[in-house]
């Protein structure tokens, strides 16, 4: 039964299955929609179509019509219109669907084409899977198994190419493994806008290389490693560290800036080995910055704070200090929404003023924004602050000098970096919650070690006011407590009403007290995030400029 197609939809038949797809979709994507995999190397949904690997060959056909009369020619046997199959195979990636198009992805010809292409690709492939880092997530392995012939007829000498070229500080190239798909070249041209890669020589001597005098140094270079379908481009950092099949993947959010790139953290037995981007077409497509990929190293860094006493004792000590003097609370734009909410509650209970420290850096217009706090908007939404934070805590500094503040609770913020002097810190009683040691923790009376973002769960609100959740990827450092638990216990210790520190309880409170979170529960936040209503803060002048999938409110208004 043929349904009338919607204006922007095109009806095609893939392996006899009828599907309506948006106009302009290519055959690979259309086939993906019916659940059929069309193997490919060079095609990448976020890049332009090159069509040079020939792996996605399929058979195409159009309904037959009389050339003169335009009358459909019917097949008397089936009673349906005859299909006019194109005698040669076509590439799926470069073919855009047209109404009534018929596609065969499983025909004998297609199968033979794939076998042939695989055989050609493998002719000069070094087959060093045992030492190749791509093994386990290699398209060549997968498709050789799925679509290859299974044996080799090649008895001649294989081509020799450079094995260990440093394309840049973070990327190593093994040219023998390259299948010349040009994804990396297109990425650099189209996404990173840093055109440094290209092919030289011809035929089987074709080699990927940097342009003379140039290096692949841009901050998105590791994305070429991600999109390389084979093991040609490998991350120098991850090189020979661990086989990917041992690694556990957990969804997380990049904390580098307020972009909030979606990531996957790869860990084994409590050790993180690498971070890769996770596709979110609303935020970061399939990319992320190189600088965000090394953040995991803080987990194992030498200046992690280690517990010296049990949590109960520390919390009691901190609680008594906080109840004694005039308190100021310095929250953090790096804390999760839940932690900021609990910090705000604690500040309210203590009658303290609360601050957060802004961090600004260079923005690159792509996936790094000016605001380097991943969760400034969370502090606004949860009511920890009511106005945009400053990079320097001058109010607090003045209060200390005036003696209005005698006790400061810092949630992971180094106050010296926020403009307070050592003398000022010496004047006040400091309680420090945090994961790493710094000048503030050194001056603090009570230190409560907490977890890094990789060891705990929670959510951030990015520059788009998109609520995104992250999961704990590895177990926490022994003895260090989750920030939520610490804050909740502190709250209870200073006489506040604790509603529990686990995510569902905190979110029950959040959805009840914060209008933006009404009817929201942590478990219901979609993997791609939940866009919040930002109209309450539209008056604020956020520092971020335009970046991928984000336009500042002001720019949007003028546009």
């Amino acid at each position: 039964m043929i349904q009338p197609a919607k204006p922007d939809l095109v009806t095609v038949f893939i392996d006899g299955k009828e599907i309506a797809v948006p106009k302009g979709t290519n055959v690979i994507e259309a086939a993906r929609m019916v659940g059929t995999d069309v193997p490919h190397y060079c095609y990448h949904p976020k890049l332009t179509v090159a069509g040079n690997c020939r792996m996605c060959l399929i058979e195409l056909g159009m309904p037959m019509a009389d050339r003169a009369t335009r009358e459909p020619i019917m097949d008397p046997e089936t009673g349906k219109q005859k299909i006019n199959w194109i005698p040669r195979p076509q590439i799926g990636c470069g073919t855009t669907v047209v109404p009534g198009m018929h596609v065969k992805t499983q025909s004998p010809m297609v199968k033979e084409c794939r076998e042939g292409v695989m055989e050609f690709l493998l002719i000069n492939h070094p087959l060093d899977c045992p030492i190749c880092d791509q093994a386990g997530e290699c398209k060549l392995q997968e498709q050789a198994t799925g679509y290859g012939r299974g044996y080799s007829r090649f008895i001649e000498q294989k081509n020799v190419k450079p094995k260990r070229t440093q394309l840049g500080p973070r990327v190593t190239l093994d040219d023998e493994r390259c299948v010349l798909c040009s994804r990396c070249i297109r990425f650099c041209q189209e996404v990173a806008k840093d055109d440094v890669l290209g092919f030289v020589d011809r035929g089987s001597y074709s080699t990927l290389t940097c342009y003379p005098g140039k290096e692949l140094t841009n901050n998105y270079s590791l994305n070429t490693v991600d999109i390389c379908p084979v093991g040609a481009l490998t991350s120098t950092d991850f090189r020979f560290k661990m086989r990917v099949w041992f690694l556990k993947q957990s969804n997380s959010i990049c904390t580098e800036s307020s972009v909030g790139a979606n990531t996957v953290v790869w860990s084994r037995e409590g050790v993180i080995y690498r971070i890769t981007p996770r596709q979110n077409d609303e935020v970061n497509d399939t990319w992320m910055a190189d600088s965000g990929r090394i953040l995991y190293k803080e987990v194992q860094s030498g200046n992690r704070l280690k517990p010296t006493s049990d949590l109960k004792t520390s919390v009691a000590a901190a609680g008594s200090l906080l109840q004694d003097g005039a308190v100021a609370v310095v929250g953090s734009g790096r804390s999760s929404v839940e932690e900021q909410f609990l910090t705000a509650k604690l500040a309210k209970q203590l009658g303290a003023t609360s601050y957060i420290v802004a961090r600004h850096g260079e923005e690159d217009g792509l996936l790094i924004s000016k605001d380097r706090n991943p969760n400034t908007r969370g502090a606004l939404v949860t009511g920890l602050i009511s106005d945009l934070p400053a990079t320097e805590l001058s109010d607090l500094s003045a209060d200390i000098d005036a003696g209005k503040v005698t006790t400061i609770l810092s949630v992971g913020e180094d106050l010296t970096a926020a403009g307070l002097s050592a003398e000022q810190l010496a004047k006040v009683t400091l309680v420090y919650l945090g994961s790493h040691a710094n000048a503030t923790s050194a001056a603090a009376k009570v230190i409560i070690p907490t977890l890094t973002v990789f060891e705990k769960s929670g959510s951030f609100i990015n520059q788009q006011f998109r609520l995104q959740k992250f999961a704990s990827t590895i177990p926490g450092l022994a003895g260090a407590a989750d920030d939520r638990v610490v804050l909740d216990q502190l709250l209870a210790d200073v006489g506040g009403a604790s509603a529990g520190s686990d995510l569902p309880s905190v979110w029950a409170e959040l959805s009840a007290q914060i209008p933006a979170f009404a009817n929201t529960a942590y478990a219901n936040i979609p993997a791609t995030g939940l866009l919040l209503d930002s109209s309450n803060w539209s008056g604020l002048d956020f520092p971020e400029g335009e970046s991928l999938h984000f336009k500042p409110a002001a720019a949007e208004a003028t546009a």
Partner: protein
Amino acid sequence: MSFKTVERKPLTFAERTYVPQIVNGLMTTFKKMVKPNETLEYPEARPPIPEGYRGVPTLVKDPNGREKCVSCQLCEFVCPPKAIRIKPGEIDPTSDSAHVEKAPEAFDIDMLRCIYCGLCQEVCPEEAIWLQNVFSLSGYTREEMVNDKDKLYELGGTLPDKHFKWDQKKAAEDRGNAAH
């Protein structure tokens, strides 16, 4: 189901007295007694180990003295009791076998866990891990029962294979470099 009753021959008188059978039995056991022993006096005399015996897993070197393992970690993956633990590492670029690129930095087999299934040997793409003829392993502590890389190579020795896969690879590389 059909069955057939087999008539048993009735016992003769001599058989019924049981005495000839006893005498026969005594003869048999006496013959056994004067025969040489069937058993081995173990620690001094060792049994012949058949070809393909699955003893303690070991790592081997190739005839050039290069360690064959490239730390692909397939054995670690396939090991049913998770007895194998590998820390991959890069070969020093100045070394002779730098073209192999990868070798284990640490390779531990916990012999308290090993079940001698031989899957590691079967899965190894480089023929670097072999279950050889050591069958008696003992130690005083748990730590002693974990064979580290040095111990594994000591047990394994050299595999006299003639593949020279990596030598050929290096030769091809040199040929290629010369051609350019």
